[in-house]
């Protein structure tokens, strides 16, 4: 073994140990992302797979929950689609518009009443649970009512936010059936909303709208088990080690336009060290030719450079924006000119390098990433090569009476990549006399600190991903609606509370024409950036090296936060491996 191999190995080793402490599995804003912009020979990844075989997924962390009322994050939402169906769902990754929401169990995206307060959905014929019982509107109603259970309903918040429910309703096990959801017959389900919500057709794509037979899922029944409505059912689950899925024979492909379900079985191998996953994917020995995995470790990137690896490397651009929030309650950041100056001064290309370079990250100049509906390309704080414009920044600082500069505290997680990003920011702001002090916080305390206005410092680096990609309604309002500022769990890091922005959010949220609304979201993106509450830094993508025998690899911005859409994946040759 020569010296370079040793050096490389020790780098991998260090990274491996660092990641032991850096992976938090909860549904926070880590970027786990991609879309259709592959390097190498793209076509090889998108061939039509053959039927049969077992696809393996190698991963470090276990999924959060098998129970879709509890789990809600990029990784598990993607998994849920293999075993569960909802009224609507994100379009498959190979659709013309992969951002769209399409019907799944329902025949269409729902029909609102004149006043927008009542939504009616009709179930398709021939949809069944894994034991062969037909899925009825009562099962959908029962499934979604679990979202109100205080112990179980810790997943997606949209059902509780949007659907009208009696005061103090606590789910079917404690409070009985949810009377505000009507089921006039076995095929029809009627929801009553608190207020009109034109995108309700997207809300019912959330995982907690999965149907379950009445009475099932009490206590911890769905902690280690599940009742499948999708193409696969649970064969075995050993928490932290493996999940095996086998075909659900009761699933009828005729009723499903989204899932291809090529392989006969799936095996999720969990608990592997990230560096080991990369080694296995690169080596591709034995059954690993049938494996896929998440994004490679930064330390592995240099090894993908050779021509031999180029064809095997699949790149997706992200759906999550990494940004620096500027706390507008802390002087001098309360002055919009100072925040604008910071926007000018930050060397985003250095941040891009810190994020793994052009292979892994694109520079962001807008709040919305390109893969989310409503995205409009603009840059109101331009600089050559995105290296920062110190002169423009200095001019604004002078105007704001901050010629001598000031110091500010930047909250970051103790994670190598984020520290590198913060150092790039620190350096470029130092050029205009702003002294940035890095406040490195342990991952477990980070979100508590930045989400609690009392504890929050001047600025923080974090990220945001959409809950569905068809519009910006799950992106801009949570981050910039001033009425959503809370004393804990706050997402509006800038604490920006601008009446014009709030009014615009209300106006666009009420629009029933999605295309027109998206047009407006794109406008609002720029209007918000004029107030400079954040500095968009990068959109982090991901790079994976799928096994040679795996194909049907498309990204889904909606269901997988941009990752590989599992329902389309399959093997070229099911006999191999």
């Amino acid at each position, binding site marked *: 073994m020569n010296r370079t191999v040793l050096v490389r190995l020790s780098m991998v080793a260090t990274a491996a140990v660092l990641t032991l402490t850096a992976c938090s599995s909860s549904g926070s804003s880590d970027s786990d992302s991609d879309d259709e912009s592959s390097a190498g020979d793209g076509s090889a990844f998108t061939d039509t797979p053959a039927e049969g075989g077992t696809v393996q997924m190698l991963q470090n962390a276990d999924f959060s929950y098998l129970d879709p009322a509890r789990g809600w994050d990029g990784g598990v939402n993607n998994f849920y689609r293999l075993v569960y169906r909802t009224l609507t769902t994100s379009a498959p990754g190979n659709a013309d518009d992969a951002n769209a929401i399409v019907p799944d169990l329902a025949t269409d995206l729902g029909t609102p009443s004149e006043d927008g307060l009542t939504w009616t959905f009709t179930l398709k014929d021939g949809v069944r649970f894994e034991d062969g019982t037909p899925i009825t509107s009562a099962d959908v109603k029962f499934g979604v009512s679990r979202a109100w259970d205080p112990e179980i309903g810790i997943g997606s918040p949209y059902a509780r936010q949007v659907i009208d429910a009696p005061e103090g309703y606590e789910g079917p096990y404690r409070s009985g059936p949810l009377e505000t959801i009507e089921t006039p017959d076995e095929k029809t389900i009627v929801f009553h909303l608190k207020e009109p919500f034109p995108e309700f057709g997207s809300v019912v794509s959330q995982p907690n709208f999965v149907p379950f037979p009445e009475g099932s899922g009490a206590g911890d029944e769905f902690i280690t088990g599940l009742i499948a409505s999708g193409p696969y059912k649970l064969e075995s689950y050993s928490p*932290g080690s493996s999940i095996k899925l086998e075909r659900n024979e009761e699933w009828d492909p005729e009723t499903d336009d989204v899932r291809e379900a090529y392989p006969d079985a799936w095996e999720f191998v969990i*608990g592997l060290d990230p560096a080991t996953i990369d080694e296995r994917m690169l080596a591709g020995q034995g059954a690993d030719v049938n494996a896929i995995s998440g994004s490679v470790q930064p330390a592995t990137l240099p090894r993908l450079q050779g021509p031999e690896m180029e064809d095997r490397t699949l790149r997706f651009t992200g759906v999550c924006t990494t940004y620096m929030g500027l706390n507008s309650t802390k002087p001098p950041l309360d002055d919009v000119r100072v925040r604008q100056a910071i926007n000018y001064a930050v060397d985003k290309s250095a941040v891009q390098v810190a994020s793994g370079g052009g292979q892994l990250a694109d520079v962001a100049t807008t709040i919305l990433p390109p893969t989310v509906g409503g995205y409009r390309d603009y840059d109101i704080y331009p600089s050559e090569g995105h290296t920062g414009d110190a002169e423009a920044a200095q001019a604004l600082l002078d105007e704001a009476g901050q010629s001598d500069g000031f110091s500010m505290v930047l909250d970051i997680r103790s994670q190598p990549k984020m520290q590198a990003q913060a150092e790039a920011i620190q350096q470029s702001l130092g050029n205009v006399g702003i002294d940035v002090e890095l406040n490195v916080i342990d991952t477990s305390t980070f979100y508590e600190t930045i989400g609690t206005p009392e504890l929050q410092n001047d600025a923080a680096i974090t990220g945001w991903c959409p809950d569905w990609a068809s519009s910006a309604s799950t992106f801009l309002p949570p981050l910039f609606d001033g009425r959503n500022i809370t004393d804990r769990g706050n997402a509006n890091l800038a604490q920006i509370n601008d009446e014009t922005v709030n009014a615009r959010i209300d106006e666009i949220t009420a629009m029933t024409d999605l295309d027109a609304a998206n047009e407006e979201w794109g406008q609002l993106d720029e209007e918000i950036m004029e107030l400079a509450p954040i500095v968009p830094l990068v959109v982090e993508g991901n790079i994976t090296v799928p096994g040679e025998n795996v194909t049907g690899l498309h990204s889904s911005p909606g269901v997988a936060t941009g990752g590989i859409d599992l329902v389309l994946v399959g093997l070229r040759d099911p006999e191999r491996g």
Partner: protein
Amino acid sequence: MLRFLLARLSGLILILLLVCVCTFAVFFVLSPDPAVQICGKNCTPELIDQIRANLGLDEPLLSQFLSFVGGLFAGRTYGAGDAATHCAAPCLGYSFQSSQPVWEMVTERLPVTVTVAIGAAVLWLLAGVVGGLISALKQGTWWDRGAMLVALSGLSIPNYVFALVLQYVLVVQLEWLPFPQAVGFAADPWQWFANYLMPWTVLAFAYASVYARLTRANVIDTLAENYVRTARAKGLPSHLVVRRHALRPALTPITTIFGMDFAGLLGGALITESVFGLNGVGKLTADAISSNDQPVIMGVTLLAAFFVVAGNVVVDLTYTALDPRVRVKSV
């Protein structure tokens, strides 16, 4: 003897209680709010409170602690009415992250850890004691120097580096061994052996180094004792001198550290299990710490403490068998 055992047993319970208090203090009192982490994105203060209530974190700390200890001995019931679930003693509570019973999580993973520990122990005892003994007998020769050089590198190479180098060479380059997975012995003995061989070797390498150096030093010391000279002067054959007079006293300190080391390993080999993706107790610990999963941390810490204390008792018992002087004093 019985009194000795009883005293040790009550000491064990006392130490476990102390460990309980300390772990609880560190992970429940001083560490950040796990509810915020679980809450994740689109979090609201109401949801945080709800999660805190679900986890029992809204109770006063003292009553949280008392119900934990109570659960250990008598089991406890979570929730009320239809939604109630009973957790039988010894109840370690439920994981904050996955809602699984901690007792199950730990016991499910224990076989992997025990397999890793036993296999590694066999390897390191063989390599360490035999290597150290030969070195001592052939003091100053090329064998001695070579063996001690290997031992020194075993001590100085961090085992995660060694693990990855070994994996790179044996699995990626030479393809002699598979990427380790926890295969059951009953399922396929050969695969079992092939999959565990690397973890065993990695763990054993570091330990064997210590044992080899210790054995060598002890044997050399005892060989210089007067009674050994007397034995030789009586004309006792060399192999008997070594076996009866030198090795036995040299091995008593080895027994002590072996008991401690092995018991410690049963609490989980954090790095080795993590690097090789073996889902043992060590991997569970590493995951629980990084996700601040307090009940799991409590559970694995108690388990590790139990093994260490129990290991000590076993060492003491073995000592009395090995060393007649201790026997006289303790009874």
